[in-house]
């Protein structure tokens, strides 16, 4: 009998699989397909203080072994999330949920995070300082160690629950940003958000995405994510949630060996809505194949 449980900031997850923000909505599209209590938890759609329509369409483009998105943080706003989405979620999901928070100013991050922090269903706050698809927010905070630390410290003071800071790969030195967030009080970091990218429609001689650029995700970015999780593991002592192109139980093991305590599954959910359930079912078999009895023991195993 293998043990797939992992600890994430004092909360035990049945397994390290966490559907990533922006690929799992507020849960109920997937609840129609399977019992969404099977993953460790999930990170809900990036939420801002005010409702946001997001970017114009097209928001989606294909890439070799991946896709670009430029959704632009479409969400109903924190008040509607609390009054409408969370009560609906409570009917289909009984675990603590990860609240993904984005914003355009430190004050906005603080306000949205503290409102969600007071919700009993919320287990962790995941601070998205790395959205590449909005201007003047998101990644503007996450690409400099000083601003990343400042927003982390401000939110840390305002919330009681574990604070996870989600990092951008679109930086020269992700380890220094992770270390700055740790120093500012982050309880964990999650990485990577999408890689800034672009496609051009050669027939139209114009960008495919209405927003010109978008974030690349999918299998194409998996080796980048493994490398960055490895580098951040060397630089911090807080837990790392690894993500970026994971689509199999073997990928989960690899990401954990690079240093992840838990993992998020993103775009794979969009291609195969059953992927998280299937990976969770495959994990014990893959663990046995690689002589892993206790999954949490392999975090960082490749560093030793």
């Amino acid at each position, binding site marked *: 009998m293998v043990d797939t449980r992992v600890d994430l900031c004092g909360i035990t997850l049945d397994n390290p699989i966490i559907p990533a923000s922006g690929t799992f909505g507020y849960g109920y599209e997937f609840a129609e397909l399977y019992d969404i209590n099977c993953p460790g938890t999930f990170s809900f759609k990036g939420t801002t203080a005010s409702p946001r329509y997001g970017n114009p369409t097209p928001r989606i483009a294909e890439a070799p072994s991946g896709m670009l998105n430029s959704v632009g943080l479409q969400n109903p706003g924190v008040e509607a999330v609390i009054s409408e989405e969370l009560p609906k979620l409570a009917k289909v999901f009984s675990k603590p949920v990860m609240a993904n928070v984005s914003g355009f100013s430190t004050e906005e991050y603080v306000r949205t995070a503290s409102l969600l922090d007071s919700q009993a269903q919320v287990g962790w706050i995941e601070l998205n300082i790395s959205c590449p698809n909005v201007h003047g927010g998101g990644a503007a905070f996450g690409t400099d160690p000083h601003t990343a630390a400042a927003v982390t410290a401000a939110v840390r003071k305002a919330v009681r629950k574990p604070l996870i800071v989600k990092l951008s790969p679109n930086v020269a030195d992700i380890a220094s940003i992770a270390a700055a967030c740790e120093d500012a009080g982050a309880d964990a970091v999650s990485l990577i958000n999408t890689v800034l990218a672009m496609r051009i429609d050669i027939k139209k001689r114009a960008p495919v995405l209405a927003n010109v650029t978008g974030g690349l995700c999918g299998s194409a970015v998996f080796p980048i994510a493994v490398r960055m999780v490895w580098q951040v593991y060397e630089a911090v002592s807080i837990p790392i949630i690894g993500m970026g192109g994971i689509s199999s139980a073997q990928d989960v093991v690899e990401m954990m060996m690079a240093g992840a305590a838990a993992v998020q599954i993103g775009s794979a959910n969009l291609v195969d*809505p059953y992927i998280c359930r299937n990976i969770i079912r495959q994990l014990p078999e893959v663990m046995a194949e690689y002589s892993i009895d206790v999954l949490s023991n392999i975090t960082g195993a490749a560093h030793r």
Partner: protein
Amino acid sequence: MLLNGDTGAITRPGQFVNIRLDGFFLRRPISVSDWDDGLLCIIYKVVGRGTAYMSSLLPGARLDILTGLGNGFDVSKSGSSPLLVGGGAGVAPMYALARVLLSRGTAVHMIAGFNTAGEIYLKDEFEALGAELTITTADGSFGRKGFVTDAMDCRHSYVYACGPEPMLKAVCNASAADGQYSFEERMGCGFGACMGCTCKTKYGSKRICRDGPVLEKEEIVW
């Protein structure tokens, strides 16, 4: 393309399927032209590498398909003399709609618009159903020369339309009747999770894949 499999999730004409293809990350959303208990028919135009790959598949190939996606057309609103309008690839889903309407005893007038005679498809099939069929071609090589709107008159109780957005808008403007219009957008997931295909409506944001692709005339923001 005819596909054998479980079609139980398909409940309405105008719904679509999302097809996974080897070597491509995103699935390809294609509207259902018709279906029965174990068979579904899709008619698609080769417009890129994904659809080119589909056309290279041999009989017997196995595909991973999500079915029953989207809201589809509501036939209960048709009234006694609905007008069906399809343009190009948008003609395909109107076949099942015509079949369902006719099976309910509703007379169907279908206007099918194409660029040129060589692109015409489903002509015999619509006529075999018993639909009144008008074909337009932009170059006049078959049927009536011009666009679908050139063949429209006001003798209809309701409009069902599928085709390129400029055609939908022209049809909407040319008709005083209520109607349902089926839209296209680049999709990520096709089942409502990614917010990749959002559009604005009078009642707020809607996802073309999940809340659509069929929108009511009165909610459309052109």
